[in-house]
Each structure stands twice: as C-alpha cells, then as structure tokens.
C-alpha cells in the first residue's frame, strides 16, 4: 500500500496540495484570458486532483525496479515512457472533461484552450510525473535501508540471545555426580543429612534453571543460589571449606548476568581449597562505588614450592579454570561491551578474581 493512501491525514494533506496546484492552473488560465475564474476553476480542479492520483502510481513503478539491478538506458526508457504515457492520458482526459462543458447551460467548453496550452500541459504533466518518480525512488530507497537495518538489528538480538543461552547452561556434570555419590554415602549412616543435601541440590538446580531464562538478575538472587551451592560443597568437603560472603546491602539490588558468581566459587573450590591439606576460606566481597559494582572472589592457593617452579602456574592454568572465566568474560562483553571487566590476580598465596560492571538496578 502506498504510504500516502494508507494514512487518512496524509491523504487529506496531499489532496489539499493537489487542489492548490489546480487553483494555480486556474489562475494561469485566468491570466492568459482563456476563461473567467469560475470556468477556469471548474476546468482545472478535477484534472489536478486526478493527476495527483496518477502521479502516485510512480511508487509501484519504482518498487518494481530494484535499486541494485539497474542499467541507465533501461531506467531512462521506462521512466521517460511512463511519464509520457501518464501525461498523454491526463491531457486527453482533461480535453474530454473540457468538452463536457458543451453539455452545460452555456453550450461551450469550460475554457477556450489554444493548442499551445495543451502542449504546455503535456510538457508540465511529463515533468511532474518525472519529479514524482524521483521522489518515490528516494522514498523506496529509504524504506529499503530502514527495513534492512531493522532486520539486521533483529538478527543481532537473536544471535545474542542464542549466545547467552548457550553460555548460561553450563553446570559442571562432575559436581552433580559427585553430589549424588555423597548422598548415596549419607543414606546409610545419616538419612536426615542425605535428605537435606538432596533438597539443597534440588533447590540449586531449580534456581539455576529459573535464572538461566533471564538476561540479568539481582545480585541477591545469585547470592541465594551460591548459598545452596556452598551448602552442598560443605557437605562434600567438610570443615576444609570455609566461606565469608560480605555483600554490601546496596549491592543486593544490582543486576548482573545469572551464574556469574557461582562459577567463581566453583573454581575457588576446585583449584584452590581442594588442593590445600588444611582447607581454607573463600572470601567474597561485593561493594558499590561511584556507580560501579565491584565483585571480588579470593581464595587461598598452595604456595608454589621452589623445587617445582611450574606447579603453581600449572594449577592456576588448569584448563577448567580458563574456560569458566572466559565464559563469564564473554557474557559480560555481550551485555556491557567494554564497560565491564574481569581481572585475575595471582598473589603468592591467594588467587583473586575481580569483576567490575555498571551498577544498574531494576527500573521500578
């Protein structure tokens, strides 16, 4: 549908413009002394409005000629031909309309148009149609560009969604099977504890599934998920595993991608606490500072023994660790671009991961 015909207000404005052009034509006829005002208007207005509709047909002509497949001669021939045909038809119709004046009371045509007048109308009609063609061509080009941009934006959103979905649903199967094994062991000598652990595991997975559907979640929800996770891990590793979560109250409402903190805790246990004979405490500090949310997870690691230069580097570069961090980094980049960062710091006896991202909260 033509954009002018599809909108009543636009159509009204366009018809008004056509009527104005018709009035202009009538004024010219009056000036040329071929008719009085009344007859000039009666003659000029219907052809002006009629030609307004004819000129709109240029829209479909432009759409039928794709921009990326155009050769000069073909376009000139078609556009020129169409303008001539439209103009000829218009002038013929105008003559017929003028002739209907003889049927009236005066028994004469509305205007006494000299042949040069008809020729002028023919030329003017052709030029007007060409102008209409050009205007429509630009309009169609704009429409195409807009459509293309919209489709591109749509596909970008789709790709981003798919990427996030892929990155989010990565729960370590090792964790699941080990937890089930622990429950299997507990059932024989501590059924209550086994039940508790089953419930923690169920809660953890239920939350994980619910959160994975969302793009960003309040920190408080992520922390709740982490508490279930730590409860399970504490049953597996016993007193070896300590955790200190220091979350600033104003940070709890801040949004972050789901499963950002949990993999960091998982890494801290897998690559840090597990390798220490006496165990250790994972420290989580979350604060809001100057519009930024800072998340820091620190865990003790075995000091690199001097006899084994590579041992420390070997454990910190364990393949699982790099993958988990790369995953979080990728998700932060998708959501925040360069405004979010993840830094890893290896101190002599500690491993620290720091995340900084804009401190956004849910719009209320």
């Amino acid at each position, binding site marked *: 549908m033509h954009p002018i015909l599809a909108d009543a207000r636009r159509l009204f404005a366009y018809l008004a413009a056509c009527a104005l052009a018709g009035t202009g034509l009538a004024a010219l006829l009056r000036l040329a002394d071929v008719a009085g005002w009344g007859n000039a208007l009666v003659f000029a207005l219907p052809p002006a409005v009629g030609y307004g509709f004819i000129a709109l047909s240029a829209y479909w002509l432009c759409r039928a000629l794709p921009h990326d497949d155009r050769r000069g001669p073909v376009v000139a021939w078609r556009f020129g031909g169409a303008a001539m045909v439209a103009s000829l038809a218009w002038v013929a119709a105008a003559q017929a309309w003028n002739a209907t004046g003889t049927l009236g009371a005066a028994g004469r045509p509305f205007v006494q148009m000299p042949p040069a007048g008809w020729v002028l109308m023919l030329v003017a009609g052709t030029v007007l149609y060409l102008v209409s063609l050009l205007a429509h061509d630009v309009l169609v080009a704009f429409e195409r560009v807009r459509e293309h941009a919209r489709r591109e934006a749509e596909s970008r959103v789709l790709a981003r969604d798919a990427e996030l979905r892929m990155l989010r649903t990565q729960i370590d*199967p*090792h964790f*699941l*099977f*080990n937890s*089930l*094994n*622990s*429950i*299997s*062991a*507990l059932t*024989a*000598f501590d059924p209550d504890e086994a039940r508790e652990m089953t419930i923690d595991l169920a809660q953890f997975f239920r939350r994980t599934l619910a959160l994975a559907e969302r793009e960003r979640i309040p920190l408080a929800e992520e922390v709740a998920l982490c508490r279930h996770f730590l409860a399970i891990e504490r*049953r*597996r*590793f*016993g007193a070896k595993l300590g955790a200190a979560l220091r979350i600033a109250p104003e940070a709890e409402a801040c949004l972050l991608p789901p499963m950002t903190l949990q993999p960091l805790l998982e890494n801290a246990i897998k690559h840090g606490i*597990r*390798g*220490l*004979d006496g165990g250790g405490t994972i420290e989580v500090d979350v604060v809001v500072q100057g519009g930024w949310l800072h998340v820091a997870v620190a865990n003790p690691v075995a000091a690199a023994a001097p*006899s*084994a*230069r*590579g*041992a420390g*580097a*070997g454990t910190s*570069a364990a393949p699982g660790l790099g993958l988990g961090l790369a995953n979080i980094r990728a998700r932060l980049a998708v959501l925040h671009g360069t405004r979010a960062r993840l830094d890893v710091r290896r101190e002599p006896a500690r491993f620290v991961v720091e995340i900084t991202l804009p401190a956004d909260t849910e719009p209320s």
Partner: protein
Amino acid sequence: MTPALRALIVDDEDLARRLVREFLSKQADVEIVGECDNGLDAVKQIGALAPDLVFLDIQMPRLTGLEVLELTGRRSGVIFTTAYDEHAMKAFDLHAVDYLLKPFSKARFDEALGRARTLLGRDAPALDALVATRAGQALQRLLIRDRDQVHVVAVEDIDCIEAQGDYLAVHAGAQCLLKLQPLAELEAQLDPRTFIRVHRSFIVNLAALQSIERAGADGHAARLRNGKRVPISRAGYERLKAWV
C-alpha cells in the same frame, strides 16, 4: 583360610571414601589398610603398604589417579572410581579398563570387585597403554620422582630434555632433574607442535629457543633462553626449518 585382601581407598572426598568402606565392610575377606585424600599421599601409601586392591579416584588435587599409576608403576588390582571425566572415560572404554561411575550401586561395586579378584596380582596390559597415552591427552606437566619427593614441572617451563643413558635430564630454568624414561616415549607424549626432536639425544621446547647458530663446517646449534647450547643434527635441522 585364605589371607585377607588388603585394600587402599584413594579419594579426596570423605563421603566417597566412606561409601567404599561401607560396601567393603560386607566383604568378610577384605581388610582396609589405609585411606588417602590426595594423589601424593597415595603414591607413598601404595609404595609403603603394597595393597592388593586400590580404589582410585581420577580427579584429585595434586596428582590425578593416572599420574599416581605413572609414578608408582602399579598395574594390578586397580579399581578406578570417577564421577565424570570425559577424557578418562573415553580412554577407559578404548582400552577396555573397568571403572566405577559415581554414584554406583552395591551390585555394580561387587561386580567390579569380583572381576578384580579373578585378576588379582596379575598386571593388566591395558593399564600400561592407558598410562602411556595419558588417557589420550597431551602431556601438561611432567612428574619426576626423586626418592620421597615428587617434582611437578609444567611442560611450558621445560627448556630442553637430554638423554643420558637410561635417564632423561629435564632442564627447566636453573634446575635439572633426572627421570627414568626412554626419550622416544616422552617425545610421543609431548605436544609435537611445541617440542621438536633436534638431535638423537635432545628435545627442545620451541618456546625456549632463542637463536640457531652455525657450528663447525655445516653443523648447527640451538641457543636456549637459559643460555644452554644444544647441538642440532642434520635431520633435526630439517625438522626445525619446517617450523621456524
């Protein structure tokens, strides 16, 4: 009455060890002689106790179950337990090595135990292949046993490896460690993209290579980052040229 089977349980999780203990308690002729919660300890206990059966977890801190086997040379009476380790499981299936997937049932446990009983004291050749191929993964760290100590050297820290009789001298920075292994066997375990055999008795880490110098009429030598000079044979030079 036959003497009791002596079993060692190796797992870093207390509950996992407890489960094996519970299943074993129903076996009248099995005696649990020890428990280890890490790989290093397991290496020591296997040497000290010489158990008939070893229940061995794969993923443990310090040393993996496969590394324990490599260091101890233990090839019989091993029952692997693992929760989920894609690489290890693939390798087990490939070499037809039995293993227990956590969580496992009493019936499955008894079946594995029964199979181990029939093979008691006999070396399983499949384990040799399994350990030699590192469960199908490229070597990431080198284990060197030095009396009571185990040195762990990350492969990226190695500058070069030199054959010295039956031993290998592993040069990493200032240290030089001796390991009892044929050079060709280690060469097969290392990533061929970073480690090049430049000479009959030398493997060089490309990352440690600083320059190639002329030596003699038409010979060459490699200068490494720790200042060491390593001879390059004619065939070694061809291999190097393909990479540098």
